[in-house]
């Protein structure tokens, strides 16, 4: 499986061993972000790093887990309730209402992720984008071109 290296700046302690082992110079950048165009995904940098600050991100993902239809429908009822709450909170004043608004969105996002929208590469996500693109949405069309299917 093809991979590329990313550096977690919160963990990086600038020991710079990655620079010594990188065969292409991808790890040596002025903004500390590993150059994806140069990275071959060999993983030497991740192995050498004493601070465990480098991980290898796959470019291909396995098919996402399937969910039962009844489960998706039960989750959807809760998502609808959460988006309604988000919408109501948006019309109310003060920071407390903002927090409720944000919190409801976060919960709804987690619930849709666990009911069929985990991977942007999935068939389900593409089907969703296709629906929007057919209705003339340009952003959806652009995303369909950018993200390749894995199913």
């Amino acid at each position: 499986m093809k991979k590329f290296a990313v550096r977690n700046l919160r963990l990086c302690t600038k020991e710079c061993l990655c620079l010594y082992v990188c065969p292409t110079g991808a790890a040596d950048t002025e903004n500390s972000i590993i150059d994806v165009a140069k990275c071959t995904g060999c993983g030497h940098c991740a192995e050498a790093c004493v601070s465990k600050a480098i991980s290898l991100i796959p470019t291909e993902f396995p098919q996402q887990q399937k969910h039962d239809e009844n489960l998706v429908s039960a989750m959807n009822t809760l998502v609808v309730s959460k988006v309604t709450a988000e919408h109501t909170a948006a019309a109310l004043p003060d920071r407390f209402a903002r927090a409720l608004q944000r919190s409801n969105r976060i919960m709804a996002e987690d619930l849709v992720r666990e009911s069929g929208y985990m991977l942007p590469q999935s068939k389900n996500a593409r089907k969703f984008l296709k629906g929007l693109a057919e209705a003339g949405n340009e952003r959806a069309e652009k995303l369909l071109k950018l993200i390749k299917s894995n199913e």
Partner: protein
Amino acid sequence: MKKYLCTICGHIYDEDAGEEKTDIPEKTAFESLPERWTCPVCGAEKSKFRILIIPKTDAVPAHTEVKPSLLSVSEVSNLKDSVICSSLAKSCEKQFKHDEAAIYCSLAKELKEKVPHAEGASFAALQKGIEHEISSIIPTAKKVAENHHDRGALRALVWAEKVTRIHHSLLERHAAEGPALIKDKTVYVCPVCGFIFIDEHAPSKCPVCSAPDWKFEIVEA
């Protein structure tokens, strides 16, 4: 009898009601709870609770009529599509697909803005929705997830249930305390599970999902 507030997650222990979940009968004084008793929502120790004094200020009159939300089918669908987009934006971000994440974010915003602002919205309406979620929607969904051994869905539901209960107790306090609830306090939201914390210093990790405190968002006015 008195009420006690969990300073970690905002759960309220009501001496009158006891606590069915932890087998504490009605009319049990907080003092007489066993020392190893912990918060049923976030697991905080007994010492993390403080007595809840509810001042009677800016109280919403009890007879206020609660208007149900009147969203059309297409409005609900736009809001839901917006959530799918902001969720997929996060997934793209995790895969370091920054351009794709940015487009998904704009798409989420575009879809959300198609729905006009709610009219006649109230905190009481939010509370009503939550009561329905806690008594019906969440238990039903949890049962379905259990039956299908869908661990991911069950995990999301367990977190959502905890956070929803926190909303419930915060709304209860807000109804009684009004704007004093957040006065001179910081409002934090956990971006992973939606946990809300209102006080000076946030706990070092989220009591619902264990995300570290540096991930918490601070809600600005």
